[in-house]
């Protein structure tokens, strides 16, 4: 008598299909950077922000002498880019894939090109070019030199060697790669409308996931958001940032700076900030972000110096 069939939990992951699935493309990039560069694979920062660069894994970790390799997806909020789900390319919420490698490895370009090959871009079938594009974020007191990477004339990645962050020289320099995931996927999947992207291999499209969000959030960003409440939020974030700074918890202060930055973007989308006021708001956000970065760097410096004698901020 044969033994009763025994339940054996088994899982053999299906091969990834980055050319036909948005999420497989992301998972492939995770596999790649985890395996090839020893990156920590982080989850998105749980705050609304305008770019992956705002993630503390990028801004704050770009400071100091310690090596740091990380990769993550960061949802980006660009309230003024919302088009109520009616534009095939423009979204008020989209994904960036960000890789930060500190210090920048000497084969970083080769690694990057290999990652493109991994998600299905053959450099002999597609024209890949590195076109000068320097990056600067006055808000973060940061700048770097690098390129936008073109694939058949389309910008698919921003590639930057950070030179300064928070007003401090990067010592050492970090290499930052920011992939525009939707664009890349549209290219690889050969679709002209972002909502037609296959999100996975089981028939779920990008539109199934996000179209309604885009409609509602565009309406809220442009028409609904209570501007008094937003002004209030801005003031509160600013105050809280100062509070956190004076308490010596710069990471918390930095979060409030990120919050203020996003609230400012919402106010912009609502069209309630005049040209004259705009500059002053931007200066306020910049001041918060820079103060937080400075406080963070200063707080960390003794520890960094203990590990790296002779290193100075």
């Amino acid at each position: 008598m044969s033994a009763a069939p025994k339940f054996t939990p088994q899982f053999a992951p299906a091969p990834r299909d980055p050319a036909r699935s948005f999420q497989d493309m992301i998972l492939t990039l995770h596999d790649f950077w985890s395996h090839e560069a020893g990156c920590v694979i982080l989850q998105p920062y749980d705050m609304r922000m305008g770019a992956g660069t705002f993630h503390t894994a990028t801004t704050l970790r770009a400071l100091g002498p310690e090596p740091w390799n990380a990769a993550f997806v960061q949802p980006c909020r660009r309230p003024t880019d919302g088009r109520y789900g009616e534009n095939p390319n423009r979204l008020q919420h989209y994904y960036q894939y960000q890789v930060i490698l500190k210090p920048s490895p000497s084969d970083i370009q080769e690694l990057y090109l290999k990652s493109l090959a991994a998600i299905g871009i053959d450099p002999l079938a597609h024209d890949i070019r590195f076109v000068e594009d320097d990056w600067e974020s006055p808000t973060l007191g940061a700048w770097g030199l690098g390129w936008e990477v073109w694939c058949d004339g389309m910008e698919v990645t921003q590639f930057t060697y950070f030179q300064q962050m928070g007003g401090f020289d990067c010592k050492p320099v970090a290499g930052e790669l920011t992939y525009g995931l939707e664009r890349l996927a549209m290219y690889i999947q050969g679709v002209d409308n972002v909502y037609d992207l296959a999100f996975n291999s089981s028939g779920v499209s990008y539109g199934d996931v996000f179209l309604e969000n885009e409609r509602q959030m565009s309406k809220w960003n442009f028409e609904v958001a209570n501007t008094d409440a937003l002004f209030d939020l801005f003031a509160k974030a600013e105050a809280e940032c100062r509070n956190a700074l004076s308490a010596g918890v710069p990471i918390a202060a930095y979060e409030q700076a990120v919050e203020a930055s996003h609230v400012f973007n919402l106010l912009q989308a609502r069209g309630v900030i005049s040209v004259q006021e705009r500059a002053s708001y931007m200066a306020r956000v910049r001041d918060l972000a820079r103060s937080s970065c400075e406080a963070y760097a200063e707080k960390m410096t003794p520890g960094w110096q203990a590990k790296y004698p002779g290193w100075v901020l």
Partner: protein
Amino acid sequence: MADFLLELRCEEIPARMQPKAKEDLARLFADALAKAGLTAGSVEAFATPRRLALIAKDLPLATEAVSEETKGPKVGAPPQALDGFLRKVGLTAEQLVERDGVYFAVVEKPGRDTAAVLSETIPAIIRAFPWPKSMRWGAASLSTESLRWVRPLSGIIALLDDAVVPCEIDGIVSGRTTMGHRFHHSGPVEIADAAAYIESLRAAHVIVHFSERCRLIREGAERAAAEAGLTLVADEGLVIENAGLTEWPVPLLGRFDEAFLDVPPEVIQLTARVNQKYFVCEDGAGKLANAFVCTANIEPNNASVVVDGNRKVLAARLSDARFFWQQDLKTPLAVHAEKLSRITFHEKLGTVADKVERVRKLALWLVEAEIVKPVEDSPQVKTTLYNNVQSAAAFCKADLVTEMVGEFPELQGLMGGYYAAKEGLPVEVAEAIRDHYKPVGQGDDVPTAPVTVAVSLADKLDTLTRFFLIDEAPTGSKDPFALRRAAIAVIALILGNGLRFRLEGALLAAVSDDLDEFEQVWHGHTDKKLANFFADRLKVQQREAGVRHDLIDAVFALGGEDDLVRLLARVHALQAFVGTEDGVNLLAGYKRAANILKKEGYEGPSGAPDPAVLASLKEGNDDIPDTGEEDPLAMVDDPDLAGILAAEARRSPSGLSYTPEPAEQALIEALAAAAPRAAEAVEAERFADAMAALASLRSAVDRFFEEVTVNAPEAEKRQARLALLAAFRDAVHRVADFSRIEG
């Protein structure tokens, strides 16, 4: 003799930096060689996106031996001085050479191997390289002292003939290997020597010569267009940029949706050019075609894949552009113009709407003052001109708030013109909106349509006066508001259209609304500063036409002349005159007279009068009535009048108390005939006649200096002759200030 190859390989160098980097490398290398006493037969530099390289041919294998002599202390100087010197040069007292009581140290320096010199030179060149922007990278950047380069430097080839010149910088060691094309070649490329460099890389799919890549792109793009039955729109800037983006350029032609051709062709071309670096094409009729040429850096295994990718990107860009175009057309220019009140023109000069209002008033004033005239002198035509100027000026900046100009600022004006035409505004208005920024720089077309001239001139005059009023005149190399260009444009508009008016009048009209500002212009001498500024610009602007700057000065120095058309006519006549023998001699006579007057204390016409002349004036002058009560010469104390009175006195050196010498008499007579003729001719703007009148003085002046002693022993004679010379000088000054003329 040996040939040397240097290659500095790095990650992609920005295209715009490559041409200059190539030159800098050649220059730095040649300088370093010269410093070491070496000369190459030839030096040629190369740039591709991933390398800077240089080949120096026919280098000597070693530098020449030299003997260096160092001067030491005097013989008999204190022993400490001698000891110090010996220590410095590393010799003993016996080895010094004595000459003329001074010790010299002579050190023989043997020749050095060129390879050794190069080993030192290469790192020095790398460290000193003048990149416009450079960066740090990698683990070494833990210190800010680490090597800087335009992008990470990854390899150095240094070969003298077939031998590696050893050198090292920040851990990068020289060798003989490089990399070929990023995708068409894998693995290192070994270079035997300088002679093999170009071809070894060609075999690895890298075209080293920048000019060869340019040629491949230019010809390839032309051919691709021709094969499609089209003509490429030539664009050398794009050729160079694409040559800086490719090591193996492959131009490919693609098509975009014909429906996009609704959008103005300039927009399509700009979208393709600026955003994508694509060429555009025209059909047989010279119309923009729905085709583009992109330049790939690979020979793709399937060209249509690459072309199709590029087409999609362009299509997305063009649909944005078409969206902007359609959005903009939904709003009339008048409504766009209202939004200008939200844009600051300059913090001290209000909004763009404020500027537009000023421009509108000034443009209308130019028509009312008949400075800008209608093409036909009828009341109806004049009314039409007035109305057209009114709307063109009101809408000239409206496109600044349109989506399209927001995206492509360089389309300002052009888009306004399109929108005006689409809106059904008169064609003169649309053209004036389109062209009112013109002329932009020298060589640009100068508008001639009256509406355009009025708006363009008003726009620039407003900019100039306003920035001068807030003390933002250009200084040195700083001209943030491009005022020099604006002034050159004003001059070009005036001269190109023969506009007759006093600049001062127009500049005051530009601020006439506001009395305070008027005062500021008047008393703050902004007008003088502006006049001088214009004089300088005129000199620059006329230099190309071969007009002498000193002659412009000579006419400007007369003061009060700011009708540029008249001024330039006078300058032209003057230039013709001083080129003749009469002119040369008259100038010599003038200078002689002016020197004597200066030496004898005679001052310029506006200076303090000579006391002797005043004395003679006191005795018998019928120009100033004597009322008995007031001393008429009290007026002489008025500095403004003194010069006039003195000049009056000089102008009539009659009633001589002695018999003049024949040559003296001849000059008196010649002057009496010529001076009024010259003055009259100037008045009537017959400048050639004025010059002819002056020319008639030449023989009398020459003879006077030959035969008459100015500095006669008798005070009376001396004074009279000085007065005569002063009268001659003044007559000449009625035409131009000859003291400003060089030569």
